[in-house]
């Protein structure tokens, strides 16, 4: 265990150093790829912190991402960025508490479809609001350089990973896993089920809110149908499944894998890429349900014995 932990720490330190220096030697194209990678890592880590541990599969994480982007677009040039970013995160947390308190009473497939429904509901409310105001998309002028956004996202990805790492080892994480295995039994044994679930849901909403707010500065254009798109939620789940959805390193591996695949194929053959993504998803669920990280971890622990 100490040896693998040491290897993981070394890999993490080397990775962080590499990523911190990256803007110095990478061109605009690769910086763009890394921006994408970091935002997926941050989004998926926050998803794993709640859904991966508790087993409550949320198909609505796009709503927090979209809300963060919306708040940034609304307040753009009305307030300084460093104030809008935490505000976007806090707004997502509040939304998560409002949604989560009633929604977390339903389990299994009801919860999955309910989160998707809630996310779509809020998306169409934003669309209607924007239409009522008479705005068709909002343009953000004078956004910060990609390098600035890069360091913001890097910090966020590190925070998100650390959060999942800490949560998965804490008492809280143990409680969430107990809920995943058998919620009724966990409740009977004195696990504060409702509190842990709602708390983790709220906590996991903060990061997507901030990522959305940063990402809309990158695209410089707010379009609700795109930013609240269920495709965002689905991608998060796919990355989590491919990488491994129970441990902090999983989403990093999953996001790296998917971003590389998409760079290789997306521009040349988007449909082939998506077919491949579908096949991969089925393959991982059927044959590697613990994801890439789970597989690597199992390989090493098997070797030690």
């Amino acid at each position: 265990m100490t040896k693998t932990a040491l290897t993981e720490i070394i890999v993490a330190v080397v990775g962080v150093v590499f990523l911190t220096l990256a803007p110095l030697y990478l061109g605009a194209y690769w910086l763009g790829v890394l921006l994408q990678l970091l935002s997926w890592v941050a989004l998926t880590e926050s998803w794993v912190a709640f859904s991966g541990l508790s087993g409550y599969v949320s198909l609505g994480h796009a709503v927090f991402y979209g809300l963060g982007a919306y708040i940034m677009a609304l307040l753009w040039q009305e307030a300084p960025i460093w104030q809008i970013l935490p505000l976007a995160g806090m707004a997502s947390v509040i939304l998560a508490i409002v949604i989560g308190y009633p929604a977390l009473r339903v389990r299994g497939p009801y919860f999955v479809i309910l989160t998707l429904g809630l996310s779509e509901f809020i998306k169409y409310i934003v669309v209607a609001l924007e239409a009522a105001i008479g705005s068709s998309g909002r343009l953000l002028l004078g956004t910060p350089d990609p390098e600035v956004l890069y360091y913001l996202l890097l910090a966020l990805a590190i925070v998100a990973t650390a959060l999942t790492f800490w949560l998965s080892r804490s008492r809280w994480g143990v409680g969430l896993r107990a809920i995943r295995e058998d919620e009724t039994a966990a409740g009977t044994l004195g696990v504060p089920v409702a509190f842990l679930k709602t708390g983790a849901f709220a906590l996991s909403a903060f990061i997507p809110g901030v990522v959305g707010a940063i990402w809309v500065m990158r695209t410089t254009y707010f379009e609700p149908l795109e930013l609240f798109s269920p495709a965002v939620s689905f991608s998060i789940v796919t990355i989590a499944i491919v990488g491994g959805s129970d441990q902090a390193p999983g989403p990093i591996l999953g996001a790296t894998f998917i971003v590389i695949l998409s760079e290789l194929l997306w521009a040349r053959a988007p449909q082939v890429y998506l077919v491949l993504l579908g096949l991969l998803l089925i393959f991982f669920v059927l044959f590697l349900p613990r994801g890439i990280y789970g597989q690597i971890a199992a390989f090493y622990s098997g070797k030690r014995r």
Partner: protein
Amino acid sequence: MDTLFSSQLLVAMLVLAAVYALIALGLNLIYGTMRLLNVAHGEIMMLGGYVSYWAFVKLGIVPLISMLAAILLTAILGALCYLTIFKAVVRNRALAARLESNSLLIFFGLSIIIQNLLSLSFSADPRSYAYLDAIIPIIGARVELNRLVELAIGAAATAACVIFFRYSRLGLAIRALIQQRDAASLIGIDAEKINLLVFSLGFAIAGLAGSLVGMTTAISPFGGFSYTISAFIIIILGGLGNLAGGLLGAVLLSFVEIYGVAATSSAYRSILVYGVFIAILLVRPQGLLGRKSA
């Protein structure tokens, strides 16, 4: 207010309800018997729609005949899906422990594959064709003939399924499996065979629905998603696995869609549909006719 009581809206609602009832039935069957969440349902509909579209445009075969081909093709696809993937999933202990979310992911993978294969083969353009579009006056409303055909076949197919589940041995066996899976196996119901049948039947119903929908509405590779969502809303409203509840849910959702839009504006369609869905689920988490269970 006068328009709300027009027979035009009533007919529109009935047409939508017939299609919704059919789609929801196919989804409910697969969920009810095996606890699998088929999020590729809408894509299978689109497959059925494409069969009828190409049969009409290339071969001049009318949808009334080509829907049989759509049923056959999707039924075979359903059987193949069960035999190659889901037979193993249902049996595998590790996968079966979280069957619902795992099946959702597998079917989601399948739906991306179907969408993009359709888009690769036929382009992403929406397709529609003119067939039986003469306007018929009926109970004071003016309706295209193809909508009436859609209503008639949709209602007839739903009724046929209801009769099948009420009176035939096989239909009763499927319902027994939905109610008490283990007990049904104990009294000699061959669960494996029924699973295969349910997969073919559930997919075939989607294929038929797609073929019907394609007569009146444009179909496209990515057009299935909204039908999948509607079907899920319906079966959750009615209670998952509850076939009668699904019929009620279909009527309710089509009522909200048609009358809600008529009373407000088409821009609010999605807000109304999701709003009613969320409200009902929060008040009655087990669905309107669902029984409270773990």
